[in-house]
Every structure is written in structure tokens, then in C-alpha cells.
């Protein structure tokens, strides 16, 4: 007998995988994962985080829907970045605190974790699945770019965890 297992990656036990497989088994597995996801996100603690991020994304989308939303000539919110941002939050480890949601002048969504001065980390979600991150963690400074594939790159989850450690 074989059993389907869901791996625990970077603290998220329900990663939002991209959908490439087309067989009957793959479809069944996808349906099962979706069902489990729905049930888990109906829980108060996990579901609340998900709902809060959804509300923040909705509010920021309304605020930045048009060009020049900041009075300095910023681009309107990038729809592809918004889609990727949603996938990013679905993939985010459920053990991490809620980030603050913002929009960059180029229209990309960004998530920021702030603990106190010199404990801050931010990730911008590019429409091309490119994550631009930067952070100040005590005397250390980090920045770079990572491709956002099936899961959030470990460099990013590690840095988020560093600011809370």
C-alpha cells in the first residue's frame, strides 16, 4: 500500500505548488491538497492570518490602482505582482508573523517584517517571479535577488527568522 505525503518545507506544511502534472493521480492529489488547505485555513488561528493579509492586499490595491498614487509619479500596482504576492503568502511558513504590505514605486508588492530599529527585512515580489530582498539585522546588512519557484527560497525564510531571533 502506498500513501501520499505532504512534505514540510520551510515551516509551511501546505505549500502552494505550481500545477504542471496532468495525470488522473495528479489531479486527485491536487484536489486532496486543496481540500486539506481549505479545512486548515478555516481554523481561527491560521485562517485569521490569511484573511488579514487578504484585507491588506485589497486595501493597498485600491490605494495604488492608478499611476501616480504617491504624487511622485509611481506606477500603478502590478497585477502580476499581486498574483505572485498571493502565491507568496500561501507559501509563507505559517509559523512566521504577519508582514506589513506595501507597494513600491515600480508597482511591485512588498512584504516587510519589522521588529525594532535594525531588525527589519523586506521582500518585493516582481511580476517575473523575481524576489528582491533587503534587510538590516543588527550590524549586518543583506540584499539580493532570488527566483520564486515552487517555494520561497531558503535565503529569504532564513533572513526573516533571523530578525526575530
Amino acid at each position: 500500500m502506498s500513501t501520499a505525503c505532504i512534505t514540510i518545507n520551510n515551516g509551511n506544511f501546505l505549500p502552494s505548488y505550481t500545477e504542471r502534472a496532468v495525470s488522473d493521480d495528479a489531479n486527485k492529489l491536487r484536489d486532496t491538497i486543496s481540500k486539506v488547505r481549505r479545512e486548515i485555513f478555516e481554523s481561527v488561528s491560521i485562517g485569521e492570518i490569511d484573511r488579514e493579509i487578504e484585507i491588506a492586499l485589497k486595501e493597498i490595491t485600491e490605494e495604488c490602482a492608478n499611476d501616480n498614487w504617491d504624487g511622485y509619479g509611481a506606477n500603478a500596482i502590478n497585477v502580476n505582482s499581486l498574483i505572485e504576492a498571493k502565491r507568496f503568502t500561501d507559501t509563507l511558513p505559517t509559523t512566521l508573523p504577519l508582514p506589513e504590505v506595501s507597494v513600491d514605486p515600480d508597482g511591485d508588492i512588498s512584504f516587510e517584517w519589522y521588529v525594532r530599529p535594525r531588525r527589519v527585512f523586506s521582500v518585493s515580489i516582481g511580476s517575473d517571479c523575481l524576489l528582491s530582498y533587503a534587510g538590516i539585522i543588527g550590524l549586518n546588512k543583506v540584499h539580493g535577488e532570488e527566483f520564486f519557484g515552487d517555494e520561497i527560497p531558503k535565503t529569504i525564510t532564513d533572513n526573516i527568522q533571523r530578525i526575530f531571533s
Partner: protein
Amino acid sequence: MKFLKRLLTTFKEFFPKKYDNVLPLEVTNNETISRFLTSRSHYSPNAPLPAKRVKYGAFMPMMHEGKWECSVFRIDGLREDEVWHIGEAQIAKSSRKVHGRADIQVLSIGKKSLNVEPDNNPPRHANIKGWPEEKSAQKLKAQELALEANLAFKA
């Protein structure tokens, strides 16, 4: 009393407003510059007052004529109401509300290998220049500026 008020108004009109002053095109390290904040992406509006802070988004540059720059105003020698007048007149004219401002010394900007270049267009206007090309490096510089900036709200 009314006569005195009228006299004062007439008297004031003879002199140019300080916020319209064209300043020299050199900045000094101890000058303060302001970035007007117009969005929740620029500061944390939901935090309680002592915990409110400037976000890096306030200082993120925009590409203008092939160069990255962040628009700011020089505020030394101005009263508070005159500083806010600049924000209302120059930034809020595009139907955006000015929520607050981030004040920072030129010296702090210089320490991040960035520089302030005044253009006096409009008067007292300047740009923070010298930004790196890579977005993540820009974010880091903007985070460092946000950390050193003072958040101010209209009284």
C-alpha cells in the same frame, strides 16, 4: 484690531514667502531635508503613535531622465506651517493627501554614499541621487535612510 490685521497682511505681501526662496545650489551637511509621505507604503499608519515609523518605501527612488532619484525639499529656516505649505502645494496638488513627512539630515544621506542635488525647481526642491542600479541595493539604502529619518505629523 481688524485694521492691524489688514496692515499685517499687506505688510507681509511686500516680502517674498520664505518657502519661495531660491536657495544656493550647494547643500551643507547639517541641513535638514524632508520627504513628504502620501501613502501607507511610506509609513506605518496603523501602529500606535510612539511605534509609528518611516518605511523604506518613503525613500525609494524613481527613474527620471535615465537616473534614479528621490524628490525632497530643503526645509531649514522655515516655520512648521511653511514646511507643510510646501507639501500641500507641491505634492498634494495631484489630489494626494500629505499624511506626514520624513525629515533627515544631509549628513546621514552622505554617509550612505548618496548625495543631495538641489535644482530649485520648484524653489527649495532637491533630489537624492547616486542610487545603485539593482533594486535590492536600492531597498537597502532606502531602509537605512528610513531608519535615520524622523517622522513628523501636522499638529
